[in-house]
């Protein structure tokens, strides 16, 4: 049990960081595009507490699932600057979250590569742990980015699609939106049924990480 708890802390903190940065990126982008709705609500902040969602950020990790979501950031497209069109603004704001996760993932990979250079004195027993941590952070961020780009409401991907849907397809899209929650629950339950949609991309990430750390231990 004690070990389990320690395990959870090691993945919960990077997860919390990723979720916080994700929401912060939404809020920050909206703010930079002229919509201060989120800023007024204090959401342009890296403080994890303002972004916590009771279920997605606390309950899910508590029951041991290394996955989650945070409180969505409200945006008001009408308040965007006139130099950006409303659909473009929505696309940028929605994409900011997943993009931030990709960036975090890239930074982590870079850290793994450069670890022996920036921390040559690392103890032999802590180094694998740190690499493991960074690898996990990369994976969780790629997972978050991919998951959020699924075009099912209320995920970020759906916001992007929504802005790009032509006028004539609107009603069809709205019908699809009303099914959104069910589809999402379905997708979240798929892994339990043995179908893992994100398996391929995740495998790719694992391969990348493996080859990177292999290169690293070869150089050691």
């Amino acid at each position: 049990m004690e070990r389990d708890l320690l395990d959870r802390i090691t993945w919960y903190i990077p997860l919390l960081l990723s979720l916080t940065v994700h929401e912060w990126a939404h809020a920050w982008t909206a703010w930079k595009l002229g919509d201060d709705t989120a800023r007024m609500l204090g959401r342009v902040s890296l403080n994890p507490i303002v972004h916590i969602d009771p279920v997605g950020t606390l309950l899910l990790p508590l029951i041991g699932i290394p996955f989650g979501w945070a409180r969505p950031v409200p945006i008001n497209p009408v308040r965007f600057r006139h130099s950006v069109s409303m659909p473009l603004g929505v696309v940028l704001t929605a994409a900011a979250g997943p993009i931030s996760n990709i960036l975090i993932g890239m930074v982590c990979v870079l850290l793994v590569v450069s670890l022996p250079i920036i921390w040559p004195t690392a103890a032999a027993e802590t180094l694998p742990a740190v690499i493991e941590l960074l690898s996990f952070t990369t994976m969780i961020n790629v997972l978050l980015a991919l998951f959020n780009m699924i075009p099912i409401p209320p995920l970020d991907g759906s916001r992007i699609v929504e802005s790009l849907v032509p006028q004539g397809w609107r009603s069809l899209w709205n019908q699809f939106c009303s099914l959104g929650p069910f589809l999402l629950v379905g997708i979240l339950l798929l892994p339990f049924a043995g179908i893992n949609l994100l398996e391929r991309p995740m495998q790719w990430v694992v391969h990348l990480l493996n080859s990177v750390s292999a290169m690293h231990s070869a150089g050691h």
Partner: protein
Amino acid sequence: MGQRLKTGLIWFFLLVLLLIVLVNRGNRTREEDEFRSVIFVENDAAIAAVEAGDIVGWRTQHGTLQLVGSEGYVLVCRDSDQTAVRKALVDNAVLPDFEQDRISETSGDRSYIYWILLPLLFFGLLYFFIKRSGSTTNNIFELRKSKARAINEQDKVRFADIGGNRAAVEMLQDLVDFLKEPKRWTDVGARIPRGILLVGPPGTGKTLLARAVAGETNAAFYYTSATEFVEMFVGVGAARVRDTFENAGKNQPAVIFIDELDAIGRTRSSGMGTMHEEREQTLNQLLVLMDGVERFQRVVVIAATNRADVLDSALMRPGRFDRVVRLHAPTETDRIEILRIHTRSKPVAQGLTMETIARHVQGLTGADIEAVLNEAAIVAVRRSRRSNDGEPVAIQEDDVIQAVEDLRKGNRVFNRLDSVLVESVTQFAEPTGRAVARVKTVNGTVIEGDVVWMNATHIKLRTSDADVVVAKELAETIEAIEGTELASDGDFVPDAWTRPNLDVG
């Protein structure tokens, strides 16, 4: 800055925690990894290890025989027939090992953890989506809650704050007495009215009276408007009525004030049609609750309406709203009284008597008089600022005349305009659309042009040669000619007064 510091501290703390855990876990994993090393062996190898004295214990798990080595490894016998190994164990006096291995523990239990996790996850998600998607209905669980608000201490009003309406105050005095000392009334077997209906034109002090009842008795005062009982969903109104009474019942003595009773209290229709089903349900619930359930002993309902003529007669039955208090525009003496109350905090110039002011505010209701005095005070301040003679500001007769004039004028102009059209035009005065309006002034001039902007008092039109600002006061009619951005396309004739929907996301 404080926010940043807090954020920084939180992440610093989390980082330190992470480092501590990492370092501790680093050591731990190594030990356990060694402990975990599992070697599958044939019977011969197992027997050799036992005889060499390397085995400290044995156990059976999932039908396999496992030998725990002295250096932490575990030998698992691969052969199905293990009698020879067991015999060797007995011969070498190796004892069974009862300490359970961690790996087998988790792998064995995993299946049922998922059975707990799955429903938890499912309900968690469901909860999440109900909360998320319920933006329009706010919260489905809150819907049936009454919206009645209790009035807090500092907003309390007393009978002394009411000018005029003597008859009404007298009648309500009985009620106050009952709420204060119910015994005096119950001893003689008197049944106090459960409901009082205040009827009178707007601004005559219905709400004020009800609040005064609460203020005098120190009773809990629940203010609600009957319109709040009207909702999209059938049964919600009735549930809210129940909830209001439930709340009041908990804080007896209590006064429930229902404003605009006519919203639910209209005569119930007979026969066909489910149009008014919801309203009637709400009304029925109210009637039932008022019919004297014991636990609402000291709950009094005061309702106000300015449409007593449309009320259902069942509302006026004994035990319900059986007392009707009619309020009317104040008489001369009433007005003086009202003026006294409202000038308490306002300096009035020497020589300006209440009687004089009262003459000027003839025909106005209490609320109007309050507005006039407020306006007069504003006018007085403005005047003193202009003259800047250093004299203390006081309301003078001219200020009152000015104020009455201002307010009357405002009302008159407003009434004359076709308010529907004004609304339409103002909607299009918003930056996105183009609207054309035709204004006919009192002296007969007609100005037609694009609406540039419009506010409460003026409208600016762009005609073919110039921009004209027209005071609404001078407008006889404002007519809307066309609107919407699409109107210029010429493809189709849009409904000029529908606004393009701007809701996105």
